[in-house]
């Protein structure tokens, strides 16, 4: 079958099971856009800015576990994808980005809309390709999807010159799984490693599991719980690990790290054994490395060998897929109880509980934490939440316990403001669900709120909840603590978000009082034929507690003062 390069791209996408792609047309990708008219099976979603396309593909991927696809033209189209690609890279999210490039003969001549896109994206992709020859196109796309979704997943970019899209060749789809000489399948644990791990486990009196994104990505929820229940080991979660194990489980300590729970952080600092399951000891999780978990031996299980010993030296490093390794380990693990350890942890929990704003009588004030807790109640804890980045993101992490994997989608590693709205669009479309809630701050929302147009046009039934405090709240919080309250460049003059939504034909309401929170959430939940927006006008000067200042010791948290004391 003779096909053009453009048709080959779409044939290959079909065979990869792609049902939707997010993109924006332009000169160098037009042949592919024209070919789309012959492939109506693949839905194309026109975004308003290419950054939105990359985040939508990312949100789709994180919600479904499948590869998300974004498509853009050369030059500015491609460079606009970069923030989204870097976001996916940091959080190991499988996306494939297809970009048009100027014709091969024009490459290197500073042609109109030419950028060295493989050069620009080299440090922020798992791998990338510039396809010079239409003969190479089919297997390149096959390889790109394979690389994106296997091992430690990540973004892959394919740059395709316009003449390659137009060239005609015999289409032969490479059915077999690609064999890449330098690309290895994940390893398993050796017997020796299992034995060494068991030895540490049996000796431990104060163990803590650190459950990361890897729990979700490898589908190891059941195995982690099995291990934890058998050994009565408390589980602290990373931000991206939320949902990996049910957070209402009695063994869960909630989130660790800079804005983690006091008891999770104290448990880590007092532990004599850390079991790091699919996490990478990010600086937001460890605080000062010199004083991090000083008494603890570390068992580190990760799929990526380069994460081992990167920040924290492991006593027993195991490279492999977490689920496979735990399946090797669990049968040999003997039951444990750790009563003293739990008594200590319960003390810490009581102290945290006393300080918790959730028990405050807010009076006339509306606190973000209360909005999010009410949202949890009103949605039965079953919603898929997509957040932006900032204070609201941390409050979500603290006050919306997640029970199932893939139900919290958030930019953890890169901390990309503007991620929330487009990622929610991708997640909702991927899940075909109207129970996807975007919780965004007023700052981050305005970075990509142009995608309201996309949500309205495609009638994507997402619920957009703006936690609106009129500030870049997280930055303001740092200014309050560390820059003597000089609030430079953090107050925001915002538009009327309800009127803004109205301009797009999106139903919207504003909430300023606690008693209106749940009814308004219930109103929004009832709208399933398109997007809906709620503007929660919350306390301007609230702070996310606890907080470990950047680089400080993990146990040196700034705690919320107990009200009235």
């Amino acid at each position, binding site marked *: 079958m003779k096909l053009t390069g453009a048709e080959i791209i779409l044939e290959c996408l079909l065979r990869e099971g792609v049902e939707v792609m997010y993109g924006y047309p332009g000169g160098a990708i037009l042949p592919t856009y024209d070919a789309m008219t012959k492939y109506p099976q693949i839905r194309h979603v026109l975004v308003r800015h290419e950054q939105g396309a990359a985040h939508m593909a990312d949100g789709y991927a994180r919600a479904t576990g499948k590869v998300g696809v974004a498509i853009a033209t050369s030059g500015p189209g491609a460079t606009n994808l970069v923030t989204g690609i870097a976001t996916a890279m940091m959080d190991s999210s499988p996306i494939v980005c297809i970009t048009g490039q100027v014709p091969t003969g024009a490459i290197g001549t500073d042609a109109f809309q030419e950028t060295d896109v*493989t*050069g620009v994206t*080299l*440090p922020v992709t*798992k*791998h990338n390709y*510039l396809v*010079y*020859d239409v*003969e*190479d196109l089919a*297997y390149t796309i096959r390889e790109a999807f394979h*690389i994106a979704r296997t091992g430690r997943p990540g973004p892959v970019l394919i740059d395709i010159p316009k003449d390659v899209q137009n060239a005609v060749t015999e289409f032969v789809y*490479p059915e*077999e799984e*690609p*064999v*890449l*000489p*330098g*690309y*290895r399948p994940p390893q398993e644990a050796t017997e020796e490693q299992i034995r060494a791990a068991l030895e540490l486990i049996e000796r431990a009196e104060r163990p803590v599991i650190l459950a990361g994104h890897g729990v979700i990505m490898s589908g190891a929820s059941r195995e982690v719980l099995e291990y934890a229940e058998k050994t009565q080991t408390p589980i602290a979660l990373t931000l991206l690990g939320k949902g990996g194990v049910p957070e209402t489980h009695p063994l869960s300590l909630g989130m660790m790290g800079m804005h983690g729970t006091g008891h999770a952080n104290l448990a880590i600092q007092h532990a004599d054994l850390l079991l790091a399951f699919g996490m990478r000891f990010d600086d937001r999780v460890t605080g000062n490395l010199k004083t991090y978990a000083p008494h603890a031996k570390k068992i580190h299980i990760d799929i*990526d*060998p*380069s994460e*081992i*010993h*990167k920040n924290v030296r492991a006593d027993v490093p195991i490279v492999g897929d977490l689920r496979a390794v735990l399946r090797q380990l669990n049968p040999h693990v003997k039951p444990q109880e750790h009563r003293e350890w739990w008594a200590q942890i319960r003390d810490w929990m009581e102290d945290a509980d006393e300080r918790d704003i959730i028990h405050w009588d807010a009076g006339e004030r509306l606190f973000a934490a209360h909005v999010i807790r009410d949202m949890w109640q009103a949605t039965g804890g079953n919603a898929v939440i997509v957040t932006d980045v900032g204070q609201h993101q941390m409050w979500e992490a603290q006050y919306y316990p997640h029970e199932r994997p893939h139900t919290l989608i958030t930019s953890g590693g890169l901390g990309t403001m503007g991620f929330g709205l487009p990622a929610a669009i991708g997640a909702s479309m991927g899940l075909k669900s109207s129970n996807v809630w975007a919780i965004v701050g007023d700052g981050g929302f305005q970075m990509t709120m142009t995608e309201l147009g996309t949500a309205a046009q495609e009638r994507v039934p997402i619920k957009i909840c703006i936690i609106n405090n009129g500030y870049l709240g997280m930055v303001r919080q740092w200014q309050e603590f560390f820059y003597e309250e000089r609030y430079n460049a953090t107050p925001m003059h915002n538009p009327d978000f309800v009127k803004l939504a109205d301009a797009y034909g999106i139903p919207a309401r504003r909430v300023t009082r606690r008693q209106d929170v749940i009814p308004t959430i219930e109103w929004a939940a009832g709208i399933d034929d398109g997007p809906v927006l709620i503007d929660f006008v919350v306390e301007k000067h609230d702070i996310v507690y606890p907080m470990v200042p950047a680089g400080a010791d993990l146990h040196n948290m700034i705690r919320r003062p107990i009200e009235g004391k």
Partner: protein
Amino acid sequence: MQTKQTLVALVENKPGVLNRVASLFRRRNFNIDSLTVGRTESPERSRMTIVVDAGADQVAKHLYKLVNVIQVENVSTVPNVSRDLALIKVHVDADTRGQVIQLCDIFRAHIVDTSSRAMIVEVTGDEEKINSMVEMLRPLGILEMVRTGVVAMARGDDVLAPPDYEARRPASNGHRASVL
């Protein structure tokens, strides 16, 4: 661990691979002492010899993350042959010409060019040998010098080669298949 280590990396012979490796070193803040690239026994592969100041394990692990890197070996951990080549243009006059010839004799170096006021000396050996040759010539006046950087290979029967790799892809077009 601040001792120099020599890594040998087999990589796919494709455009951009040198760029990927160089970008990795810059991005991860790895200090490299030297990096050489060249052809191998197979047209599909190139070979890099990378001398790093520290953290060879971490460098190797990150190299493996690059899809085009096939195999990495730390040859410092095994008996190995390592060679550097230098071309040194040294100032000479009637008095010192003889000294240079004598030094070349001792170091088994060659004089590959000579003119009235300069000679080019070619010397091959491990880094230390070349360093000492340079030190001996320095008092005479080194006008210009270039060193290739180290290339290395493990001694013995073991061969650094990809594990049972059979290319399943169509061969790339000849005009694209070379140069890193």
